[in-house]
């Protein structure tokens, strides 16, 4: 009996500890890493994030000479922040967003279409050798976008099988 009373006293001393979370917003800690947010204006399409992602979440596909599609799948991202760390243009920020529960996995995707300038001599242009060369980016890459698969293979030429050729008849 006395032990129960003691327990009740301890509980009363502690007071109410339950957080009012679903009814009131919960602030995240300052250094919390949530969902990465991609800034398309700053992205230069170097592919460093794709090469450094441990979960191989960021897929690249060069649909033509000037346009590169980058797709962040978001489903197995561990929010490690390596993509934001390696990005030379600081185009990726780790936001404090954690309310990402969804009933469809595709809601987590982010897709960027990056415009790539071309060099008149080599057809492909990158900035002067430096940190980007260490990211092993050479040539064109063809990840398997429909299957969501990361293919580590790059070619020095653009594979045109994906693009059906349009025949324009002129008289």
């Amino acid at each position: 009996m006395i032990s129960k009373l003691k327990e009740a006293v301890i509980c009363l001393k502690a007071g109410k500890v339950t957080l009012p979370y679903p009814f009131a917003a919960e602030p995240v800690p300052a250094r919390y890493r949530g969902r990465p947010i991609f800034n398309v204006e700053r992205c230069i399409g170097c592919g460093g994030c794709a090469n450094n992602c441990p979960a191989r979440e960021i897929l690249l596909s060069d649909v033509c000479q000037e346009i590169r599609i980058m797709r962040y799948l978001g489903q197995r991202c561990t929010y490690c922040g390596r993509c934001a760390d390696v990005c030379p243009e600081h185009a990726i920020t780790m936001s404090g967003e954690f309310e990402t529960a969804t009933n469809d996995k595709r809601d987590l995707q982010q897709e960027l279409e990056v415009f790539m300038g071309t060099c008149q001599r080599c057809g492909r242009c990158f900035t002067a050798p430096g940190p980007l060369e260490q990211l092993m980016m050479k040539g064109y890459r063809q990840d398997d976008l429909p299957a969501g698969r990361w293919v580590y293979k790059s070619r020095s030429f653009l594979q045109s099988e994906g693009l059906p050729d349009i025949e324009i008849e002129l008289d």
Partner: protein
Amino acid sequence: MLSKLCQRAFKKSIWVYHANSGGCNGCDIEVLNVLTPYYDVERFGIKLVGSPRHADVMLCQGPALRSTAKALERAYQAMPAPKLVFAIGSCACGGGIWYDSYSVIGPVDKVIPVDFYVPGCPPRPEAIVYGVAVALGLVDKKVAPVKLKQLEFPIARYHPEDLECKDDMVVYTKLDRI
């Protein structure tokens, strides 16, 4: 009538079964954190049970492994009919970092149908509570697929959907706008 009653009563008292099919225990700790007085989900009638036969909701953690996929499937089949499956953590949602290793089959939804995904490694307890709130219909989901473009590239070859056939000539419909 009984099934309607079941549907209405389902939201009021969710009994969860906690299934780990090969995770690292990080998500387990967060799920148990949700059940403590700090996040007190018993307010919403959520209770942890030890058997899938008593459960309405299965909380899956960890990827489906070669060794545990069959057990996971059997646990799913043992649950009574109105049932939900939550994939908690990036392993259960997408297979985790080792999604392509020899022992990992992949995400949990390759083995059993998954209704809700809570990504994160591990997700915060708040994120799990939010996922439950989404499932109960208390709040709407906040994420949506994002598609961003730097610029519209005005060459017909790259926009085959904008080409039109006009009396034996192929015309690029956006041409006058450029």
